[in-house]
């Protein structure tokens, strides 16, 4: 077992078992089997899957901003975002394939269409969005086939919001407490984080005189990101601490600082100084990436400790039996 190295498992949380008497140290009242996890934590590598979430968000939200830039006559911004979206979605798909246990069988993802599997839905989404993003990029860079390029731009912008948010459903559609129990908030966190990344990219890559919308998007996305994350953590109750403690807590905290600094810097100074815009944009990109790593690690932490499985399920059972028979709760 991989967990034995860090001394978390089998110490401190036992209530029963061979050495239960000596090790009865615990905060929340719950029992477990030698403190062992009930759930399996994801087998995914954090770099691959958090990277897949981040790059998908950057690409999807980027396509929306690219279409906006093109419609409002900001060609440099549009070109930059189309390029970053095409590269990001290629990277996102590559990370997903790299994480497979059998990468050679990646095409099996398109073997069936399964509405109950967000990964299946996502694969089909990527199969449609990927070529659109690539086409929009190719046309913008070469100047060829402008009509087809516009069509691809519109297509990518239409699918982009779905690309930026389906990964939240993918994570939430598991038994992992920090993800599943956040299923109402996680899509908003991901959409906001994706917009942070895309506006950051726009700030990095476009001239100051075109970047007004990117600065406004950065501020709006930053505010939405902070609010959605805060609401999610509150609503999660006990499980919310997985977003505040340990590795996930440090990642989320750093992400908040970077996102806020990036948005503020871009808004206050980015209109005058190109350097400030680039720095702010880079901070927003980094903040978005760290948010995804934080969400990933919170999920792992919530699966690893049986407390986050047992305690919420117990309180759910208690409130259910009160509901059905208030008198019998005694």
């Amino acid at each position: 077992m991989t967990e034995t190295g860090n001394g978390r498992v089998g110490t401190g949380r036992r209530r029963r078992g061979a050495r239960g008497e000596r090790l009865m140290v615990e905060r929340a009242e719950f029992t477990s089997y030698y403190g062992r996890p009930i759930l399996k934590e994801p087998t995914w590598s954090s770099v691959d899957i958090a990277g897949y979430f981040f790059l998908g968000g950057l690409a999807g939200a980027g396509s929306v901003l690219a279409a906006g830039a093109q419609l409002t006559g900001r060609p440099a911004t549009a070109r930059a975002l189309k390029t970053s979206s095409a590269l990001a979605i290629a990277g996102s798909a590559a990370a997903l394939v790299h994480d497979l246990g059998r990468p050679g069988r990646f095409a099996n993802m398109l073997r069936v269409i399964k509405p109950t599997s967000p990964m299946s839905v996502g694969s089909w989404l990527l199969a449609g969005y990927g070529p659109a993003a690539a086409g929009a990029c190719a046309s913008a860079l070469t100047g060829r086939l402008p009509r087809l390029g516009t069509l691809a731009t519109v297509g990518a912008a239409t699918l982009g919001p779905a690309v930026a948010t389906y990964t939240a459903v993918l994570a939430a559609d598991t038994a992992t407490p920090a993800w599943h129990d956040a299923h109402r908030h996680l899509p908003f966190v991901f959409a906001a984080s994706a917009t942070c990344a895309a506006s950051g990219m726009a700030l990095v890559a476009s001239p100051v005189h075109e970047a007004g919308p990117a600065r406004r998007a950065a501020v709006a996305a930053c505010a939405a990101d902070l609010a959605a994350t805060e609401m999610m953590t509150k609503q999660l109750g006990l499980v919310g601490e997985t977003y505040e403690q340990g590795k996930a807590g440090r990642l989320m905290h750093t992400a908040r600082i970077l996102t806020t600094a990036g948005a503020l810097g871009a808004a206050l100074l980015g209109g005058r100084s190109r350097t400030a815009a680039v720095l702010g944009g880079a901070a927003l990109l980094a903040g978005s990436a760290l948010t995804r790593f934080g969400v990933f690690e919170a999920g792992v932490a919530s699966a690893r400790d049986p407390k986050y499985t047992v305690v919420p399920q117990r309180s759910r059972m208690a409130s259910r039996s009160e509901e059905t028979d208030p008198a019998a709760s005694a």
Partner: protein
Amino acid sequence: MAQDTDTSGAGRRTGTLRRLLSGPEPEPAEDAGHTGAPARVGFFTDTSVCIGCKACEVACKEWNAIPEDGIDLTGMSYDNTQSLGASTWRHVAFIEQNVVAASLPSAQDHSDVDVFALASGTEPGTVGATEPGDGAERDGVRWLMSSDVCKHCTHAACLDVCPTGALVRTEYGTVVVQQDVCNGCGYCVPACPYGVIDQRKDDGRVFKCTMCYDRLGDGLEPACAKACPTESIQFGPLEELRERAAERVEQLHRRGVTSARLYGHEPDDGVGGDGAFFLLLDEPEVYGLPPDPVVTTRDLPEMWRHAAYAALGLVGAAAAVFLPLPGRRSGR
């Protein structure tokens, strides 16, 4: 899915879509497309007669040719297997509990028990087995043993989320991985509410109990049930097992074993009932089982709905930031 407006997530709806995602589902094999499917089969694991011999673990490893997955001494009583996993499809849990001797059911008078009748098997379900608590009254220690296995859920999250269709519902109502299809995406692993299915790192694919699909086809019972010397693991049509289990609980309650309870037997629980269910003598979490598991896809319509709201929000925000339209393009 978008037209579904049940926000409670209670799964009480009987509409077809609802039935496919959660709630009571009488015909999992038929609804998976098997016509004229045989009766759904399952396991009833009666932990009150388990003696912890691990014959099930060994028989499973042997029959299914499962590789060795580590030899450890854990200090967890006699449990060195630790948990279910890609290469452990039956896992016997051992729990040692200190209890007040007088509180043990075995403190009752046994003088009227005909041990020869028990040994000759005229009393079903107790052949050669120790009744719970027997022998423990002297030192006030209770020893719980339980052979855990994949639950072959009526609503199996592993199957629902599998993007390749590698995980399928068989004609027997069981859940099986098709090893020639699985691409090792690992999605099923965190999806399982019982932490059963896992990936073999060196192979890349995932593995779990098949309920001996290959044996079922030949009319044989699964290897673990065959090997179990105490009939702690019983195999058969699920309906029949549920009736037998209800009788067994009553029998134990009559004998004063009030801690006996069934786990995973109810067709209206969070996973629509388990194909492999249990008789336990303590709370589920004591055995490492979740007390109230729910199939994650029960909430899937709500997840997609919220993703749609978030996506619309993204579009709206993008439109708003570009609104001061051309002409005012000085960077403001």
